[in-house]
Each structure stands twice: as C-alpha cells, then as structure tokens.
C-alpha cells in the first residue's frame, strides 16, 4: 500500500504543473536550509502582486512564498487573514494593526515593530476568496507537517470535509516525513481519496481506486459514487462521451414515453398534449354546448376528444400537438445513452468494479448485521416464550395472560425505579423482584383457576384470556394509558460498533446474555435437580408420574410460577428498550405463541430453535422490504402456517406414544 502510494505521489508530481521540477528531489518544502533572508527577499520581489493579488496570476507567487523558508506560514496566514497592508509610498509590505487614527506596522517576516503610519499612508491588502483559497491550500502544506499532532489531525479533518485538487500535491509531499504511523496511514488514505476524486492522471486514479480494494469506509464509497453518476442523453447519431449504457426505447427500464420525454426535455421534440391540457383546451373552446361542432355530452371518450381537438387544430384555434406517429418517428430517429459525468472510461470502469466488490462485501456485512439483529430479536422471543413453552409442555395449557405477566414485570421495573434512583441498582433489584411478583401471580392463578380446569386446555385458554383482559384494564387504571419510562443504566447506552455497517446496542447484547443465562439455568434445573426430574416425568406421562409418588399439583404450580416468573424478567428486559404500556406484553404474545408452536413443546431446544426461526425470519423478511415491518410480520405468520404443514408438532416434537397420537 505504501509503496503504491509513493509511486502515486511520484506520478502525481510529474503531472502536477505546480511542482513539476522539485517535488521528487525536494520532498520537504519547509527545508531548514533556506536562507533566513529568503522570505523577505521573496516578499520584496513580489510586493506588487501581494498587494493586489489576482486569482489568475498569484499561484507562482504563493508557491515562491511557500518555499521561502521559516516565517512563511505565518506570513501566508496573515495574508489570508487580511492582516497585511502595503505602504503607498514604496509598496513595502507590513503586518498592520489599527492603532488610534493610523496603523501600527510590523515587519512581515520577523513581526518586529516597524513603527506607525497614518491611515492615508497604508492600504490594507484584502485578497478575494479565490486567492484566499489558494493561500489556504499552500498553508495546508505547513499544517500537514506541523510539529503539533493536533494541528496535523485538524488539517486532515479539514481535508476530509472539503479537500480539493489543490491539496493533492501538499498532501503527497507531507507523507514521507510523518512520524506518527496512525496519522501517516490517514494521510495516505486521504491522498488516495483525493486522487480518486481530483487526480488528473487516469492511471494514477485507477491505481488509487484499486489500492483501496474492497474497503468498507463510507468515505471511499462517497469518493466513488460521484464518478459513476450518469446523465441520460439523446443523440442524433452514435452516443458520444463515456457511455455507461446505451438504451433502447421500449425495453424494460426505458419506455418509449420516457424516451420522448427526454427528447422534449432536451428541446429536440415538441411537447405532447397531456390529457389535462387537452381537456383545458377543449373547455376553453366550448361554444353553445359543443366543441368544434361535437356536443359536450359526446366528449366522454378519448377518441371523441381527439377528434374535437383535431377539428380545432384545423380551424387554427389551438396549436398543433404532436401526433402519435410523429412521436414514434422522433423516438426512432434518436439514440439514447446514460453518459458518465466522468469522461475517462478507465476510471469509471475501475470505480464500477471497485464499487461492485465493495457492495458485495457491504452485503456480506449487512448480512452479518442482520444476523446480529435476528439473534437479539430471537433472544427476546426466547425470553418471552420460554415460560409459555414450559407451562404448555408440562400442563398442555396455553396461558393467554402470559403477555400481561410480561407487562407486570416491566411495570415492576418502573415502580422500582420510582424508588431507587440509581439505574444500575434499580435494575439489579427489579430483576429478582419482577420474578417474585410474577411468580406469585402465576402461582395464584394456577391455584385459583387453572387447577380447576385440568385437561380442559380450550377452557383454560379462554379463562386465562378473561384474566388477561382484566389485568390489562387494571394496568390502565393504575398506570394510565401513556408510556412509562424504564431507563437502562448508562453503561448499557451506546452500541458496540464493528465497522461502518455492523453494530449492535449494548442493551441487546445484555438481553442476549440474559437469554443465555436463562437457557443455562433452565438446563441446569431440568437436568440436574430433583424438581427438573419430576417436571420431566409429569411432562412425559402425568398419570405414571403421579403413581410414582410425584405430586403433579405441586409440580404444576411450581412450573407455572416458574414460567410466569421468567415472563416477569423478560418484561424488565423488554421494557428497557420498548415503551412500557399496558399493551407491552400483548405486542409480544402472538410471536411467543408462534415460537412455541414452531418449536414444539416439552423441549427447551425446541423453544430455542423456534425463537431463532421466528426472530430470524422476521428480520430476514424485514430486510427484504425494510420500509414495511407490518408486511414482514404478515409474511412471517403465513410462513408459519405453511410450516405447520410439514412439522405439525414443531421443530422438535415428542415422538412415539408419549406424543398422544
């Protein structure tokens, strides 16, 4: 890369008229060996030009000043800042400062006091914007080599904002002596970008483009895109210029109408009569309820209106409009092409191929970003659905109030934050408290309602729905309908950013970790504890489990409490990034159902797979149609309905007789 850039700098120098002779041999324009008196001499030599600078002629002067040794940057700065003046009597240049009725004069090189002069003696030097631009470009050279690293950085930042062709040479010259490797890399990159945009040698620009490879930086793409801008043009003969693509009217993407519109826009053909114009023209010529002898009532078809207009044309009442035949003729008589604004074909070809490989890589990165998004959504669904899956697996009960338990968890977090102002502590308190609150609610619901509807899953579904609407309204009555804040601690603000494309917010990472923790916890409880053993026994064969001395009522109660408790924790997690309203849980409940249905019951891995599928699918469909998240959900549900065709019992289903076939 570096070698390439040096070669590039060299070729640049060869082509740049400003420094044709000395840039290769004299890499440092601020070489210390320049004589101290040099600047004064140069100033004296060019005093007339300095006093009355013009954009056309000043370049050699600025170049000479720039090479004149120490003090030059200060002088140039003063010049650009309109802090110089020339003495009318001899044209000598001074730094001037208003003092009383006159000016205080200072030596332009050393800044030493040079006395005073009355106002009439001195004319202030006010270079125009063009000249100031040239001076600034010359100054950049010094700033880029300034001993102060902050100044160099600032100069680079300024360049990235509005670099121009005049910066190419100073930037190339400032690379070799750069001591700081990071700044050096930045300089090289900037030189490449500026070369792509403003270079005059096509070979150098192509080399610069290729030097970037498939760089992901936005600045690289920003440099490439203007090169590939095209303009659609019509030609009498073969298209001229750097042709991007020749177009044939009537082919997809370029209709004959568009072709004619282009001809009209370029003034090559007369405008066609629009329907609105036609109507207006006819209405302007209504006489006695008829236009050109055709009664008004008949003018309700396009054909009759055309006839009327032709009649008016014949009478000379309206200007002639292009007929369809004429339109077809003019369209056929021309050729059309998209022409690059950039004249050099080699550059555009290199830019196009670079952009293509970049966009391939960008797509891959977008894919990675999408995967992260999907992962985080999947962990949310997993957290929301795991409780549902547990209760469904063990008790064959769909808890319609599960969403309200999620809401309950979120409100618990909100209430805790009302009392504990430190967000970190409040979240740490809220998580177990939310679990406790929803666990209690779940146990109460199991004992009061669900236990009495054993083996009646549909009735349970409806009864829990009753609880759901009652709870939802209760939340509204207590907390109001407006959204309540549940604020994440500061260390969860911000995002983990990998590059310009891939990034994920810390909250989502935290939720992912939370989901992992719960997966681990769940696996531990299920596979390593007595409770887990009993739960699995009840899941697989309740009556057998009961006859082995397991109390299914107790297991059901605990499972239900556990499932509800996890819902509460999920509520806190969801509340951190979503609005906490009474409908928070309801927004997630159907997706949770989908997760359970898709994943299959009685197996945590099924829930995990279901969450991954539902989350991934939703994000994937959203990516295909980013403007429309509603459509994404629609299609996701349709997919699931079809999916059920092939795996009616979910991804991971209980097999054999235990499945109750």
């Amino acid at each position: 890369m570096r070698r390439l850039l040096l070669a590039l700098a060299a070729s640049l120098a060869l082509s740049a008229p400003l420094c044709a002779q000395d840039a290769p041999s004299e890499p440092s324009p601020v070489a210390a060996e320049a004589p101290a008196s040099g600047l004064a001499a140069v100033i004296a030599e060019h005093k007339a030009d300095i006093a009355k600078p013009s954009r056309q002629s000043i370049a050699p002067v600025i170049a000479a000043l720039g090479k004149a040794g120490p003090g030059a940057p200060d002088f140039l700065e003063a010049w650009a800042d309109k802090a110089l003046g020339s003495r009318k009597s001899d044209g000598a240049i001074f730094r001037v400062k208003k003092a009383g009725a006159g000016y205080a004069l200072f030596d332009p090189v050393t800044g030493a006091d040079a006395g005073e002069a009355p106002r009439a003696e001195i004319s202030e030097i006010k270079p125009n914007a063009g000249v100031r631009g040239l001076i600034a470009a010359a100054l950049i050279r010094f700033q880029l080599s300034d001993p102060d690293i902050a100044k160099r950085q600032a100069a680079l930042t300024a360049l990235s904002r509005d670099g121009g062709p005049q910066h190419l040479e100073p930037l190339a010259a400032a690379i070799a002596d750069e001591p700081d490797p990071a700044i050096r890399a930045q300089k090289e990159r900037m030189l490449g970008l500026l070369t792509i945009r403003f270079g005059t040698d096509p070979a150098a620009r192509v080399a610069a483009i290729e030097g970037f490879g498939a760089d992901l930086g936005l600045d690289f793409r920003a440099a490439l895109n203007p090169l590939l801008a095209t303009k659609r043009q019509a030609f009498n003969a073969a298209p001229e210029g750097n042709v991007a693509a020749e177009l044939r009217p009537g082919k997809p993407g370029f209709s004959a109408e568009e072709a004619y519109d282009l001809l009209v826009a370029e003034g090559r053909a007369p405008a066609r009569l629009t329907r609105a114009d036609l109507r207006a023209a006819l209405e302007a010529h209504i006489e006695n309820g008829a236009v050109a002898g055709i009664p008004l009532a008949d003018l309700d078809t396009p054909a009759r209106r055309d006839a009327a207009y032709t009649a008016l044309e014949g009478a000379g009442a309206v200007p002639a409009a292009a007929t369809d035949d004429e339109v077809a003729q003019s369209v056929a008589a021309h050729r059309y092409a998209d022409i690059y604004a950039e004249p050099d074909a080699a550059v555009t070809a290199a830019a196009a191929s670079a952009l293509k490989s970049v966009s391939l890589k960008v797509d891959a990165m977008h894919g990675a970003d999408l995967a992260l998004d999907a992962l985080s959504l999947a962990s949310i669904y997993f957290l929301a659905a795991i409780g549902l899956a547990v209760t469904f697996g063990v008790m064959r009960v769909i808890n319609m109030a599960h969403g309200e338990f999620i809401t309950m968890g979120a409100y618990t977090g909100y209430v805790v934050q009302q009392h504990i102002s430190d967000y970190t502590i409040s979240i740490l308190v809220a998580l177990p408290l939310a679990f406790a609150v929803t666990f209690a609610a779940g146990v109460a619901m199991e004992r009061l309602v669900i236990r009495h509807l054993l083996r009646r899953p549909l009735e349970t579904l409806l009864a829990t729905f009753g609880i759901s609407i009652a709870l939802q309204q209760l939340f509204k009555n207590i907390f109001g309908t407006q959204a309540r804040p549940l604020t994440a601690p500061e260390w969860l603000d911000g995002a983990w950013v990998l590059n310009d494309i891939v990034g994920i917010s810390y909250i989502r990472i935290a939720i992912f970790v939370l989901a992992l923790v719960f997966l681990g916890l769940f696996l531990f409880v299920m596979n390593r504890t007595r409770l887990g053993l009993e739960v699995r026994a009840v899941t697989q064969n309740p009556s057998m489990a009961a006859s082995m001395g397991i109390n299914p009522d107790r297991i059901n109660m605990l499972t239900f409490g556990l499932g509800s408790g996890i819902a509460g924790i999920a509520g806190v997690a969801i509340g951190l990034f979503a609005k906490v309203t009474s409908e928070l849980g309801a927004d997630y409940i159907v997706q949770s159902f989908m997760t359970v249905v898709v994943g299959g019951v009685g197996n945590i891995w099924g829930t995990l797979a279901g969450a991954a599928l539902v989350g991934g699918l939703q994000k994937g469909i959203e990516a295909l149609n980013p403007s429309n998240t509603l459509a994404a959900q629609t299609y996701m549900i349709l997919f699931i309905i079809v999916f059920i065709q092939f795996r009616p019992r979910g991804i991971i289903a209980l097999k054999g007789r235990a499945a109750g076939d």
Partner: protein
Amino acid sequence: MSGLLEVSGISVTFDGFRAINNLSFSIGAAELRAVIGPNGAGKTTFMDIVTGKTRPDEGRVLWGERSIDLLRLDEAQIARAGVGRKFQRPTVFEDQTVAENLMMALKAHRSPWRVLLWKPAAADHARVEALAVQVGLGDSLSRKSGELSHGQKQWLEIGMLLAQEPRLLLVDEPAAGMTLAEREQTTTLLVELAKTHAVVVVEHDMDFVRRLNCKVTVLHEGSVLAEGSLDHVTANQQVIEVYLGR
C-alpha cells in the same frame, strides 16, 4: 390362497423400541382368527397399522381382490374400504343416543354433502332397531350412550361395527367386562359372522379363544411366533416359554 388382507414384512419403531418386527399376516375373506400374545407383543400396534392409525417404517399391507395398498389410505378411507374396528376400551359417542350412534355407523355415503342432505328412510330406522335388538339394546334406543353400563357400551360398539357392514372386523378384547352369558353370546356372534366375514379377534382370555375354535396366531416381540390351532400352538415349546410362562 389369496387372502382378503395380506400384511407382509412390516416393522415399526417407537423411540428406538421395535413394536412390530418384520411381521407378516394374512387372512381370508371368510375366516375367524384369534391373535394372542403377552403384553407388549404388538397386538394393538398391529391393528393400528391395519386401520391406518400408525404408519409402519417398512412393509406392505394389501387389501382385497384388487390388492389395494392400505398404507396409502388414511383411516377414514380404510374404514370405507371395509375394515371395521372395535376398540379395547369401548368408545362410543357418549353425548348421543344409542340410535344416533348406530345411525352414524350405518353403512351409507360418508361425504359431507351427502350426509347433510341425507334423510333416514324407514328401512334405515328398521335396520337400526334390528341392530339394537341384536345387541340387546332394543329398549335403550333413545338413551344417551353415556348412561350405559360398561358391558352395554361394548355391545353398542359391536352393534356399530355390524352397522358399518365391514368385510374385515378387527375386534380388540371383546369379552372384557362382560358376564359369562354375554361372552357366550359374543362367541356365537363372532363365529356366525366369520361365515361371511373376515374376523380378527385379539384376546387375552384363553377360555374365550378356545371357545372360538379357530386358527390362532401368537405374537411375540412384534413378530409371529407360531400359528395354527390352539392345541397346536399351546404345544409349541417357545409359546409355552414366552406366553404361558411355564
């Protein structure tokens, strides 16, 4: 001889447990056959496969003169093809009357449109009544079948089986929960039926099987262990070991 039902080489596995292992079985159009075997021998799974409830992993089940592949049909199609089944536990529609149960089972068109527009003719009512009398439920026609005793439900189910007019009857433990007299009656009925139908009886009760006086197939661990008359199979040393437990 070409049988009504030809089962050849079927196997089925539940979660690694081989319930049926390379089982072959065949029965003629008018034959009575008893299937016996210890618990878990695969008797019920065998019936599940024939009636389409369970799909075997391999093997073939051919039906009738035109050798229709039953494995390609669903339960309802198999039933319409002429396979009737009586379950181990009596399963009747408890919220409906005896007459409704029988009327539903009565051989007729089964498609929704035909059923919607179907009106019972006098002959149908007579047939239902006759069936009810035959199974001893003549005065219970308008009772909800849920109120019947266990034995009466067994009889109702046999009545429904008869109403279907199947060509093959799969009867799972018909004598369970019946009095001695009822068993006698059942035996007579089955033997009578076997003169015109194929009848497969799965039974535990050896006395009952002996009274049927027919060819016996002994199942063990999912395959046929022995076949022949009851005396022949009970003399078989292997059968004695695995089944009679001596």
